[in-house]
């Protein structure tokens, strides 16, 4: 049974099938090993140059069924989180904003920002530039925007670029009022680099907002959550998307992401100013910390 399944996976995803291995709960110690710089890819440690292509493979393979799987694995809750995320930012309340939505391939956040500004504040001048490293995801987003009134307007544009090195010619310094990144920063090879780029492109007084899976602090809830995510999500990935490995990666990468205070520190290290290190200050926990909104300002 096992070899047959591996074979099928290997056929479907020649470069990702290696992930289908069991979970290694002992993260290896990077510092003790000489050799190339490494980073985490789920629970595996991989050379830094490799992570980008590995992540790209994951998202290439999930792009078409991405929204379906998000709905299935979070039982639709990711929509609520994204709604909360955007309504916290209140785009358009005090005049139009120039926004950049990084890792926003399918346009979830961009569409919400534009809708919020239009419906609440009759603002049709807010613009969103969607940036993603993955062309497949951007294509999904573009297709989706064709169904809306924003298609072919200056309000929306799509760019293929790496969050860690946004080309300075296209994304100039001190340009944007709002930088959003939802469920994306986790997949960057180097989070500090991505934060530095965010700091660079934001105007002074601009807001950085990040929606990301985070650490559940209640031990009982955390136990149930772990059970659910390590058994149900890869299983649903198999059934609905025919792709267990990619979803195993998603679950593992969530566990490897730094907890709230640590990430808040990383944000400050990039030069941002944040609120106090408590829930409701530098970050806001959603659903007990399953997801978390980090906000910061370039002062």
């Amino acid at each position: 049974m096992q070899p047959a399944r591996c074979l099928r996976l290997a056929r479907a995803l020649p470069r990702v099938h290696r992930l289908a291995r069991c979970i290694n709960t002992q993260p290896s110690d990077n510092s003790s090993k000489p050799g190339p710089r490494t980073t985490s890819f789920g629970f595996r440690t991989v050379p830094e140059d490799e992570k980008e292509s590995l992540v790209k493979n994951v998202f290439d393979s999930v792009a078409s069924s991405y929204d379906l799987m998000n709905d299935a694995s979070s039982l639709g809750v990711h929509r609520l989180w994204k709604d909360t995320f955007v309504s916290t930012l209140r785009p358009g309340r005090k005049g139009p904003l120039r926004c950049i939505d990084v890792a926003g391939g399918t346009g979830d956040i961009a569409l919400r920002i534009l809708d919020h500004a239009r419906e609440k504040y009759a603002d049709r001048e807010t613009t969103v530039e969607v940036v993603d490293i993955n062309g497949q995801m951007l294509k999904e987003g573009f297709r989706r925007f064709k169904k809306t009134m924003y298609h072919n307007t200056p309000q929306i544009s799509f760019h293929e670029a790496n969050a860690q090195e946004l080309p300075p010619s296209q994304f100039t310094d001190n340009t944007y009022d709002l930088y959003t990144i939802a469920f994306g920063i986790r997949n960057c090879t180097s989070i500090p680099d991505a934060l530095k780029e965010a700091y660079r492109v934001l105007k002074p007084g601009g807001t950085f907002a990040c929606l990301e899976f985070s650490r559940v602090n209640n031990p009982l809830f955390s136990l149930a959550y772990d059970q659910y995510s390590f058994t149900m999500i890869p299983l649903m990935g198999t059934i609905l998307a025919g792709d267990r490995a990619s979803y195993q990666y998603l679950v593992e990468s969530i566990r490897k992401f730094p907890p709230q205070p640590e990430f808040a520190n990383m944000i400050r290290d990039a030069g941002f100013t944040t609120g106090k290190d408590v829930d409701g200050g530098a970050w806001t926990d959603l659903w007990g910390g399953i997801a978390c909104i980090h906000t910061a300002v370039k002062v």
Partner: protein
Amino acid sequence: MAANSSTRLLKLALPLVSEHGFTRAALARSVLHLPTPHAEPLSDTAVSALFGRGDLARKTLIRAWLDDGVESMKNAPGVGTSVKDALHARLAYNEPVLAHLPEAFALLAAPESGIPPIDPVPALKHAARIADEACYVSGDQSLRLSWYTKRATLTGIYSAAELHQLTSPQTAHSFLDSLLSTSTTIDSSVEEVKLFSSYIFRSWAGIIRSQGVL
């Protein structure tokens, strides 16, 4: 906290309270007073990102102002000797923003969920902290029950003086003095009553013992 904490901006916003009140505008303008000032105030989104949404941002500012008030009792020149000086210094700290205080206290007392209709806890905490700080700066050594009674008395006195200050700022300081002197009179009378009753008790105990009952 690190240099990149919002605390720095809150400190800059405090002097703006007398002009702009405890508002998001005061917070937004804090960046105009940085060493390298911004050209324009912070955007609404940025204020929410740093200090909280809507009225939460105002609450953050009020709390920072209250914290600063407690600090001012410690650092005010010529203070550090008596409870009286400390409380006077705290009342003086209120003076520049007196016009905005009722609204600020109302906001603190307004609960987030709507139940109960008025939340008295922040007001009590506010006065209790000031009483405790006054005891601390005066080097109060009282122990056990008197530790509590002293702080409870001062909490009551300060609350009354502050309420008085809201309606009649000129007479607040003399009112505080009169309350403090009344309380010392009450204190000493209570002490005397205690002493006297202990004499009575002991003499009765002696009488009973001499009768051979015990």
